[in-house]
Each structure stands twice: as structure tokens, then as C-alpha cells.
């Protein structure tokens, strides 16, 4: 039987704002989120398809180098190809693999939190990124708790 919701944050916490995804997952751990799986990793990989396939809804949480502030939230469409690198697997490719390899039907979203500093080592977030993270957590936590995430937005609609 499928579990309800997977929130998968990814990025390198040693790469400044690249760590926004894992930081978001860590922040969500302090909330009471029944039937929600929280996972974080340095980057998406192909075996995440197996984990995703065990869930009805998946939210990928990543840092983004450009785009709306404080965050963008949009539905993930299955991707037909891997865009550039199998070591940098995109959310759409994870969903496609989950569907084609495991027969899963998943409703997936990306929460893209805007970051600003990426090109150095450092285990901290910039002040602006911390502000954006707080807004993103405030947005996602109640949706995850109330089981209303799939209806939180119309397909392809963007919230920020």
C-alpha cells in the first residue's frame, strides 16, 4: 500500500545556499507531520525512483540559482529524457523512472527555494536564503500536515 507523502530535500550543506533543500527537511522535522516521509541527500539519484514509487505524492525541495523569491512551487511533469547528467537527475526523470520501472502513479511537485551564494565551501546559508527558507517552511508544513497538498495549486500554476 502506498504511503502518503514524501518530501525529499537535496543539495550540499557544505556548499552554502546549495544546502537549502536538506535545511528545509531538517526544519520540517520539528513539525508533527503524520504519514509523511522526510528524506534528504546530496543530490537526486536513480534509486530515488524506488523510494518515490512507494508514495502517492512527492515534493522535491531544491535550491535554485534564479527565479522567484522567496520560492517557487510547481507541479513536476514526467521528463522524457535526462537533460544533462545521470548524476544530476531531475525530478521529472525520477517520476518517469518510478512510473516506467515500478508502475507508480505519482503526483509530484517541486519547491524551489531561491539561493544566492553557491560557489564556495561553507556550512551556512546566506541571510536572504534563510529568510526564503523560513517562508518556504511556513508554506509547506501546513499543507503537508493537512493532507491538502495535491489540491494546493492547480496544475502548472506557480506560487510565490
Amino acid at each position: 500500500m502506498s504511503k502518503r507523502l514524501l518530501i525529499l530535500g537535496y543539495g550540499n550543506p557544505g556548499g552554502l545556499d546549495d544546502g537549502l533543500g536538506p535545511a528545509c527537511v531538517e526544519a520540517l522535522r520539528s513539525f508533527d507531520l503524520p504519514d509523511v516521509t522526510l528524506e534528504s541527500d546530496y543530490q537526486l539519484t536513480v534509486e530515488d525512483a524506488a523510494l518515490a514509487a512507494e508514495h502517492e505524492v512527492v515534493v522535491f525541495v531544491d535550491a535554485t540559482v534564479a527565479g522567484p523569491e522567496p520560492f517557487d512551487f510547481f507541479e513536476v511533469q514526467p521528463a522524457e529524457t535526462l537533460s544533462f547528467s545521470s548524476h544530476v537527475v531531475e525530478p521529472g526523470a525520477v517520476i518517469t523512472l518510478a512510473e516506467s520501472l515500478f508502475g507508480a502513479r505519482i503526483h509530484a511537485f517541486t519547491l524551489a527555494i531561491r539561493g544566492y551564494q553557491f560557489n564556495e565551501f561553507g556550512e551556512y546559508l546566506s541571510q536572504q536564503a534563510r529568510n526564503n527558507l523560513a517562508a518556504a517552511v511556513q508554506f509547506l508544513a501546513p499543507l503537508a500536515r493537512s493532507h491538502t497538498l495535491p489540491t494546493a495549486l492547480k496544475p502548472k500554476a506557480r506560487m510565490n
Partner: protein
Amino acid sequence: MVKTTHPRKIIIEPVTRVEGHGKVTILLDEHRKVQQARLHIVEFRGFERFIQGRPYWEVPVLVQRLCGICPVSHHLAAAKAMDLIAGVDQLPPTAEKMRRLMHYGQMFQSHALHFFHLVSPDLLFGFDADPAIRNVIGVARQFPHLAVQGVMMRKYGQELIKATAGKKIHGTGAIPGGINKNLSIAERDEFLKDLDQMLKWSRESVALAKEYTVTHLKELVDFGSFESNHFGLVRKDGAMDLYHGNLRAITADGQKIFDQVDYQTYADYLAEEVKPWSYMKFPFIQSLGPDRGWYRVGPLARINTCDFIDTPEAEGARQELMALTQGKPNNITMAYHWARMIELLHSIEKIKDLLHDPDLQGVELRAQGRTRRSHAVGMIEAPRGTLIHDYEVNEQDQVTRCNLIVSTTHNNTPMNRAVEKVARDFLSGTEVTEGLLNRIEVAIRAYDPCLSCATHAMGRMPLTVEIQDAQGIRVHRRTRGVDPDV
């Protein structure tokens, strides 16, 4: 008056389906023949500054930030150095075997990922197949059993890492002088359930790689290939040992350059050359100098440098590979894939032995240090090749200096040679054809380089192919897959 034709530069960036990104520049002479090819690699710099001043016991955790694909290799290399800093020469059996289990799990998942999801599209669809099909999703559609196999093998290795190292991002398994947990009976039994399936798939993977290499030998024997020295760790009896050993280097025809060298003295044997056009250094064997002393590391180099493998099925497979070159070192670049699958089989054989070893349930997890050191080297055979971590620590327990030589740096010259060979053989005119681009990618991927794990954040990974003339003016550009929103 002499008419001068300026050389032209052809630039390809980044190379797809390797970690991070790189750029290939092909410099043509006045006759439009390849003069030189260069692989430029963007490294994630500043790590030394990041780690200076940190207490030494934090280092095995911090170094995992270097690479999102192989954090375990950095974790273990650093832990081995910090064992010595803490004054520990000998780990308790449980600690060493838990680390080995972690390492073989890492090797298993990394090799499975590389072969099934990076390389198999090239092998199954051919170098000239449409990139829209020649990827892991294409494999999933046409060869779903192989794609599932790759995912489940990768998952098995990742679960082993989780059971031995802890969380994916904040793994803390290895600590100076030992390990922080053993393997419970329940954990062991979970891994034993799938072991036979993993062994079966590993055997099939070796067979697939072997069959491809033998069937296409005429095409592959010269593809991006050249003679080189080979370098790696071997056990005292000459066996392959991916976790610990002494240094051995051999020539292209198998003569030993040095053997059974304590890796604490690696700096007496290796040096690094700096070239103005590359951020990455070019290591070489000091006694041979930079022109003749460069070498290869990684699966093929390890198969070439060892005398035997101490697990029966992998040893049988090694003998078959070596028979291809009548027992002499194999210098065929594309044979890396076959060698990598032999190591995959070796790793799962080792995992099987370890899972049946009661020492993994032991309770002595950490040794007490005796004489603390201020300088130590940790070395390991990571999936992509030899990994060196070299640290100095002051009396306040703070790191004052570190020097890392990663596998991809060891293979810097060989990768440049491979690219140049392919460019000479396949470039026609001044246009980067899809066929040339594909072949350059295939040659680089044989080494499974980790170009940079700087950041994967959205909007950071465009693929652009660009041709520039000698004045830097773009004459041809091709970009695919860029999100216009970022």
C-alpha cells in the same frame, strides 16, 4: 608575403553524464588538423581554507561535503588519516570490518550506477544513437529489466552505507580510531535476503561487459587508447585490496617502477605538475619525470597492478580479462568498463564474506590512541581510483594544512590523452558533429570522472557545444536542454 592561417579552437562544454561539468577545447593547426585537445575541469576550490582550524575529529564528517556521489570514500580516507593522528595504528576487528563493509557497499553502488545508468546507453544503443534515446530513460523503456537491476543494485549499496555510516548527508560511522556502531543481527539478515540476487546480477553484469568488449574489440582496441603506466594500492601479498595496502606502480608492459611502498611516504614518489591552462594539477611519478611519469588509476589500473584477486569469481573474471592481452597490462581505455564490473563482483563477494563474519556484531568499536601524530596520510582505492588525504594537525588539535589528490586528478593526463586521440581519429572539418561529441563523451566516461560537485542547483547544468575561431569569435554553437526560466 607569408599568408598565415590562424589555428582554430573548437570548444565543447560541458561533457554530459559525468558529475559536474567540464569543457573540451580542440585546437586545430593551420591545416585544420588536431594540434592538441584539452579537457578543462572546474574544481570546487577553497576546501583547504574551509577545513583549516577545525578539530581533527570533525574532519571525516566535513570531507563528505566534497562529493555528493562518493562521500564515503572521502569519509574513510580522512578517517584513516585521523586514526594515525589520534595515535591508533591498529583498529579493533569489528571497526575495520564495518569500515570495509561500508567501503564495499560504496564501491558496489557507485559501479552499478556508472555502468547501468551512465554507460549502458552507449553500449546498448551505440555511440551514434540519438541522445534523446541514449540515456537511462531510453534503457528503462527498451531494457526495463536492466534499468530495474541497476536501480536495485544501487539501492542495496546505499542501504549498506546507511547501515554502516548512518544518515546519507551526515554520515558519522567512522571516527578516529574506530567506528561508532556495529551491525545488528536484524540488519545483517535484511542484507542476506537479497544477497543471492545481487550476486547473480553482478555475474550477469560482468558477462555483459565482457561480451560487449570482446564483440566490439576491433573497434574498441584503438578507441581513445594509448600505453601508460598504472598505479594503485596492493596488499602485501600482491592481492587487490580496495581498502588498504601499499603503493605499486608499473609500466605499460608490466615492469615494476616501485612496489610495496608505505603510502605515508607517497610524496617521495609522486609529484604534481601545474599547467597554465588547467585548474587541475597533473600528477606524475617523480623518478620518470612529468613527460613519462603520468599514470592511470581506477578499475583498469587496479586490475593491471594487482597479482590476483582474493575472491574466486572475480579472480576468474580477472584472468579472462588479462588473457585478452596475454597477461600483460591492458591499455584499452574501454576495458575500464569490464574491469569495473569485475570489481563490482569482487565487492559483492566481499560483502557476502563480511555479512557471515561474526566480528560485525562485536562490541569493541574503538581503539585507544598511544602516541599522537601531527602529520598523517590516509589513502584508499575509491571507485574512480586512488584517493589521497594528507593532513597536519597542531597541538591544539586543529587542522593546519591539508592536501587532497583525488582520483580524477590522477587521471588528468590520461583523460586528456583519450580526448586528443578521439579528436584526431574522428574530427573532420571544423564542426563538432553529434558523432564526435558522443565519442568524446564516451572516452571521458570510461574514466568515470568526478569533474565537480560544486553545485547541482537548478539552472546550473546547461549543455553547450561551441566552436570559436582563433580570435575567440563563435562560429558554431549548439545548446540542448536549457531551462529558459533560469
